């Protein structure tokens, strides 16, 4: 008789690991990445690769410097990298994309304690820092398929054909793309935000694989659509025009920065929707999804405390 392992119960596990969950998120993002490559050209893939590499390397370096176990294996840095890229215009200078990745991982994630400890979504914080620092580069929108016409090497050159996003067009007035084009993503915008079809496919995959529940996406999207409509906007263009779908499906549902309680998820998502609508309709910015998620991220601990479930039998017999 050799050694018997002695541990606390339970002695079995359902087999689902954090890594497999994160791998599911990466899989769910693949349709969005493919759509971005079709719409904005091979440079989209380059941007994704660069931010992902920047995030993973930052994670590795930060863990080594902070003398913590290296956590690159859990794939969370990969997801942050992909999401950051999907929130950038295709024309972004690559060094800026790298800075975004470093900020997201080193400052937002690792300095606050690493995976599960960051108080805001790293990809969103990275995007917002870039947006504030390099406003013009961050709103330099290429027209879809314009890479096909540019003569120079499609990967290295930045397309000259630019246009305003549908949300900006709505604010300024002008001709909008057809709804079917909006749904398929044939409109200017960030890499991953334009193709609603791909995002919905990814979202359905996440729900089927039980990575997320539909609560946050549905409440977030529903609130924004209804409120923008009540405020006099066109709800369908608000649904498809900005980063709402990408934000609601992939960013607002980030485990670490969203409430764990179901009631909390509802409050959080409605809050995101309200802030997004108000920014879009009344603020000087055309888009508010990132800011709304960032602001609601900060409120998560309080939302959780207020929505703690009542334990079984807390007031006696029903």
């Amino acid at each position, binding site marked *: *008789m*050799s050694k*018997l*392992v*002695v*541990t*606390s*119960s*339970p*002695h*079995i*596990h*359902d087999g*689902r*690991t*954090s890594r*497999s*969950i994160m791998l599911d998120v990466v899989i769910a993002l693949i349709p969005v990445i493919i759509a971005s490559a079709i719409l904005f050209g091979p440079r989209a893939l380059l941007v994704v690769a660069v931010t992902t590499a920047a995030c993973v390397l930052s994670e590795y370096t930060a863990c080594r410097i902070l003398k913590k176990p290296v*956590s690159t294996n*859990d794939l*969370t840095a990969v997801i942050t990298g992909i999401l950051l890229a999907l929130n950038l215009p295709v024309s972004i200078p690559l060094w800026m994309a790298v800075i975004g990745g470093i900020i997201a991982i080193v400052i937002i994630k690792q300095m606050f304690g*690493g*995976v*599960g*400890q960051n108080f805001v979504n790293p990809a969103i914080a990275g995007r917002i820092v870039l947006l504030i620092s390099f406003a013009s580069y961050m709103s330099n929108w290429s027209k879809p398929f314009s890479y096909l016409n540019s003569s120079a090497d499609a990967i290295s050159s930045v397309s000259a054909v630019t246009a305003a996003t549908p949300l900006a067009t709505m604010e300024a007035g002008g001709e909008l793309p057809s709804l079917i084009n909006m749904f398929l993503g044939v409109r200017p915008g960030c890499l991953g935000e334009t193709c609603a079809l791909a995002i919905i496919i990814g979202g359905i995959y996440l729900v089927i694989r039980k990575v997320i529940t539909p609560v946050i996406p549905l409440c977030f999207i529903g609130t924004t659509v209804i409120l923008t409509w009540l405020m006099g906007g066109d709800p369908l263009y608000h649904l498809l025009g900005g980063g709402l779908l990408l934000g609601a499906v992939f960013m607002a549902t980030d*485990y*670490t920065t969203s409430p*764990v*309680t179901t009631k909390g998820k509802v409050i959080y998502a409605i809050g995101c929707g309200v802030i997004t609508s108000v920014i879009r309709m009344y603020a000087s910015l055309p888009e508010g999804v990132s800011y709304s998620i960032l602001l609601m991220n900060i409120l998560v601990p309080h939302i*959780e405390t207020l929505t*703690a*479930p*009542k*334990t*079984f*039998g*807390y*007031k*006696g*017999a*029903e």
Partner: protein
Amino acid sequence: MNNVIQPARKIKGGAKAPHFKRTAEMESVVMPAPEMVVIPMQQHIGAPCKPTVKAGDNVLVGQVIGDTDAFVSAPIHSSISGKVKSIGSILLSNGKKCDAIYIENDGKGEFFREIRPVEIKSKADLLAAARASGIVGIGGAGFPTHVKLAIKDDMNVDTLIINGAECEPYITSDYRESIESPERIIAGMEMVMKQLNISRGIVGIESNKPQGIAAIKKCLEQNTSVDIDIIELPAMYPHGAEKMLIYAATGRQVPMGGLPSDIGCIVMNITSVSVLYHYISTGKPLFRKRLTVDGGAIKEPKNVFAPIGTRISDIVEFCGGFKGEPTKLLLGGPMMGISQYDLEMPITKQNNAIIALTEKETFVTLEQPCIRCGRCLCVCPMSLMPVTIERSAKIGDTAALKKLSVSNCMECGCCAFACPSMRPLTQYMKDAKNILMRKGTSK
């Protein structure tokens, strides 16, 4: 009346634990009494028993060898006939020490001469019989059955629930009881209901035990004098947890810190009620237990009747020994069972299974950082927040722990079973309870 009905309520959460009930079709076999048994004097919650025999005494099967005057306790009987070799201290698997009586088998298997059927005419008779039978609950704590049945007349207990859910993976000992002696279960229920003036009886069995349901149903069809229903519970862990069973069966919630009797229910294990009737009809107390011996490291999985105090090694040997090296040895099921470090540990009244897992079956906790996915909340049947409780426990925030109602945790293991970061959450829940208890007593 006397029907198979669906649960009144759906429980929240729960874990989709595998069933592994491969011993379900295996008829129980009685193992020959071993050379020696080790009978600990603490096999229940409450006061430990004091040995009533001394080294050198001859004892017979069913003879009382340990007892106490304390109310919350249950007498302990000899499980074999033979000579008391010695009385010494033993370290139990829960980390507590107590006296244990070592008895050498004389091979005669002779029963104690005073064993005879008991006549039950009143509630007092029933309670006395329940105590004398030595029966305790098997829900981990080992709550003496006679204490459970000693309800005050003003408590309005109207429902007797028999727990045959057996939601733990592997274990089929209760299932075998319902197949092999359904008439004893029904007769025992009838007696308890009559003496305690309880109007309604419910047998809760999970839907993955169709033969048990059928056997009891058949029994009920022949006996229509009592109001007993069978509730077919969904085959999902932890329907066998007392509070969950009551909720599923009646829709009533046991208040936090309260007892089932507070909401008019008494819950008895299906084997306990059967053994109680067996005692009343024959006078034979609880001296042996049916154990499911299973797991990848067991050569011949079986349901075995083993004398209480039989050492694990003897039982495993009866089941053909080990197949390869066992990595983990459990008394009880894999969700709530206690892992053992010593094969010489004796089995007690509360045990219903020995599970030996191979290295492949042993899940190794490589604790990773919490990603706050919230799965522990989703699966918690008590609607607790394990993720938040863990954080509060680590910083010793007793006020927060109190607010988070951690004392309501029943340690079912669902949170740790579902945690994708392999965190031993159930252990953290236990720690948190201990922190609260220590603080509570130091004030």
